[in-house]
């Protein structure tokens, strides 16, 4: 297949531009962050009562675009028109006043305020057009909150209304964020990946809500990676790549493969990286691991040279399981044995001593020391080994180690003394992997190894993972990206509500089957 739709070229899928003025029109919006051009001139329009799916790879600029639409960030260039009138500099309040409601990827709930306040406050703020010297109408706030919460099937009891949001589980928070967006008379509701935390049942409910909104003439803009979900909702697809809109079409008219091609610019290579695995002796045994309120009784084992994938929804316990294995948030009960030795870590240092390396999910906040040199970022776990005379760090050895690591993992940088923030996402991720290779780990736990990393980098990282496994390392990959798991793993475990509900052999597994297992309410098959 060849690339048919260049940026700016007329979109496929026939006519959509009607004579009527669209509700919101985005014209040639640009945005750059330092050296990154996050948006290189994006235009499209939103019609009332229409559903849009904004699709594209990680880092292609989706979140940036919706932040500009919702007034959270100003654009560098370009124009926004609401009802045909240019709006100039859009502030959050102005956007809300114009009827643009947003469910952010991080939910954007105020942690120390109550559910009622989180849901009902914005409406009053907008009514006061952002002016803070106004009385708070408690009664109205409660009514608003009750109505909106009821719409998303959350309780409306007094106790629940007055709970702080940071005491609630992820899924509830997601629903509260949705409730806030529909609490007032929105004309456009934007939802940035709203289903990652939700069960199938809740997703169905969300689709009902969306249909109701559409019936009222409200436009809905989804940001999502889940093509199947998009297809079941229907509507228009807006596809972005590398800061540009590359296509816009009716989602029903195109196959997943086509959509995928527009997103990546490549024929989706679903070929497995994993080939001819050679397993060694038993490496890891996880025995009845439990952590209160998060996961229970997780047991599995793996051998040297094996790659195991773990997936599940946001609060399925998969993140906490990874953290427990890495010792970041230790489990309450259960054992972890490595090479037959009990190594159950109480803190990250224990895991590291035992030979477990952990590449965390959020590389910026959990992984890297952004302002510090690449060298320090790499050698941090082995500082003690780099001591020379008088316990002083041996700079030469440390530099040599960092350089070797950088070469080995093909990190593109002129000097390891540069701060790690000068690297691009993919390179930063490789620095993190390089850090753990310095300890010669027996087990490497990769948590979302390619989040925010583009296709080229992904490929490099996958090859590195395969090489490490071939060298006899055990690798655990925790990921949302089902394709990534299917391409790289030998086995994939699916978690739901804190339990491992199914374990698949990855070879010859259909993505469809894996997806169903992920969102299903109840188990249909017994684990293998």
């Amino acid at each position, binding site marked *: 297949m060849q690339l048919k739709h260049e940026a700016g070229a007329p979109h496929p899928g026939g006519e959509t531009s009607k004579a009527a003025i669209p509700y919101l029109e985005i014209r040639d919006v640009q945005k750059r962050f330092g050296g990154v051009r996050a948006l290189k001139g994006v235009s499209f329009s939103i019609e009332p009562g229409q559903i849009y799916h904004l699709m594209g790879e990680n880092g292609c600029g989706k979140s940036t675009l919706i932040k500009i639409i*919702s007034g*959270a960030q100003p654009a560098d260039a370009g124009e926004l028109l609401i009802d045909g009138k240019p709006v100039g500099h859009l*502030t*959050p*309040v102005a956007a*809300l006043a114009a009827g643009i409601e947003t469910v*952010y990827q991080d939910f*954007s*709930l*105020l*942690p*120390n*305020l109550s559910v009622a*306040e989180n849901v009902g*406050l*914005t409406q*009053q*703020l*907008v009514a*006061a057009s*952002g*002016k*803070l*010297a*106004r*009385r*708070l109408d*408690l009664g109205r706030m409660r009514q608003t909150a009750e109505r909106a919460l009821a719409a998303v*099937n*959350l*309780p409306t009891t007094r106790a*629940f209304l007055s*709970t702080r949001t940071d*005491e*609630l*589980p992820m*899924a*509830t928070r997601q*629903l509260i964020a949705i409730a806030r967006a529909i609490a007032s008379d929105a004309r456009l509701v934007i939802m940035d990946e709203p289903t990652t935390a939700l069960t199938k*049942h*809740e997703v169905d*409910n969300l689709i009902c809500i969306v249909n109701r909104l559409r019936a009222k003439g409200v436009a809905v803009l989804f940001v999502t990676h889940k093509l199947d979900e998009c297809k079941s909702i229907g509507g228009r697809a807006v596809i972005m790549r590398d800061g540009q809109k590359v296509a816009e079409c009716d989602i029903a008219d195109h196959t997943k493969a086509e959509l995928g091609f527009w997103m990546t610019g490549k024929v989706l290579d679903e070929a497995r990286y994993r080939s001819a695995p050679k397993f060694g002796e038993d490496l890891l045994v996880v025995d009845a691991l439990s952590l209160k*309120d998060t996961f229970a009784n997780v047991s599995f084992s793996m051998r040297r040279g094996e790659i195991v994938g773990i997936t599940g929804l946001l609060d399925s316990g998969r993140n906490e399981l990874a953290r427990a294995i890495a010792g970041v948030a230790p489990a309450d009960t259960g054992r972890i044995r490595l090479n037959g030795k009990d190594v159950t870590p109480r803190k990250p240092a224990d895991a590291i001593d035992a030979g477990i390396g952990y590449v965390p999910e959020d590389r910026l906040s959990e992984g890297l020391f952004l302002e510090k040199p690449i060298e320090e970022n790499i050698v941090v776990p082995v500082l003690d080994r780099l001591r020379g005379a008088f316990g002083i760090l041996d700079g030469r050895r440390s530099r040599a180690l960092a350089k070797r690591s950088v070469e080995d993992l093909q990190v593109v940088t002129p000097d390891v003394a540069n701060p790690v923030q000068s690297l691009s996402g993919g390179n930063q991720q490789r620095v993190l992997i390089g850090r753990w290779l310095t300890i010669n780990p027996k087990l490497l736990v990769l948590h979302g190894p390619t989040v925010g990393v583009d296709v080229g980098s992904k490929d490099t990282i996958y090859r590195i993972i395969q090489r490490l496994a071939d060298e006899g390392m055990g690798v655990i990959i925790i990921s949302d990206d089902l394709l990534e798991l299917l391409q790289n793993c030998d086995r994939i475990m699916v978690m739901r509500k804190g339990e491992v509900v199914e374990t698949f052999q990855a070879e010859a597994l259909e993505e469809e089957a894996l997806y169903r297992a992920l969102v299903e309410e109840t188990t249909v098959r017994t684990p293998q």
Partner: protein
Amino acid sequence: MTDTTFNGATPAGNDKVSLGSAWRWLLRHPPVVTFALIVLVCLVVGSINTDFWQVSNLFDILRASVVRGLFALGVLVVLASGGIDVSFTAIAAFVMYTVTMLVTNLLPGLPMPVILLVAAAGGACFGALNGVLVHALRAPSLIVTIGTQYVIRSFLLTFVGTALFMNIPGSMEAFGKLALFTHQSANGSISVLPAFVLVLAVAAAVTWWILERTLMGRAVYAVGGNPGIAERLGFNLRTVHIFVFAYAGLLAGIAGIMHVASNRLANPFDLAGTELEIIAAVVLGGARITGGSGSVIGTLLGVVLITLVSNVLILVGIPSTWQLAIIGVFIVFAGTVFSLRAKG
């Protein structure tokens, strides 16, 4: 459906009244801890020395709480928004000295309400300056206000004056002497509850109203909870920053005048060095130093606790030289309890 989600909504989920849940309840209501400490101190002191249970003693504690309380309410608002202010004593000193001097020399007949208004406005201006700097410099407010504290105080001492000012305006002196309630004890000595305690009461009520019943109040807590999210949701950070510091400055200005009226002298060197003690009172009242929490009632209790400790030690025979050490222990204790709250 509703049921299943609701179960998810209360993770702890155990409704049985156990010691653990009582403890958790206590940690969620920090003023209760403060109140318990107050009751404890009162009972201990009162049982050692029955003189403690005198009306005059109560009056003294109330009287000594006024200036502290006004400061503390300002600090509360700043802390709730995630900032910290150490310049309020300098603002108070500047305002009280300058206003007293101006009124005495230029407008000796100025009535008290006007004086208070002028002081409040002056304090608010200095506070707003703090707010602008904190917002514009994007530096920790502790360090910014250390800077402004130096500037304000030394400007006062360099360019305005340094001499003790004994002859305060008549209206201020009269206001300081105005009695709300007079009590004659058995031995004939008179104790007076001064009317200016009402100023604290009014300030507390207004602060409560602002924090709990206005959008600004919610904005203060929102910004204290997470400034990035608050901004995204439409709260204007600059407005909030300027407001909280200006409000703290306003209360500091009024507190300065109260200090002069009750002391009947204006000393530009006064009040310096008490700022940490005030912040301590607010923290004892359950406000987190990292922002997003704190209540008026808790703050008032914290002030009463600090005042109590500094007033009653002599009654139980502990030399008042131990006062500071004991307050220090209280703060460490309260800080530990509240850090448990943050974790648990």
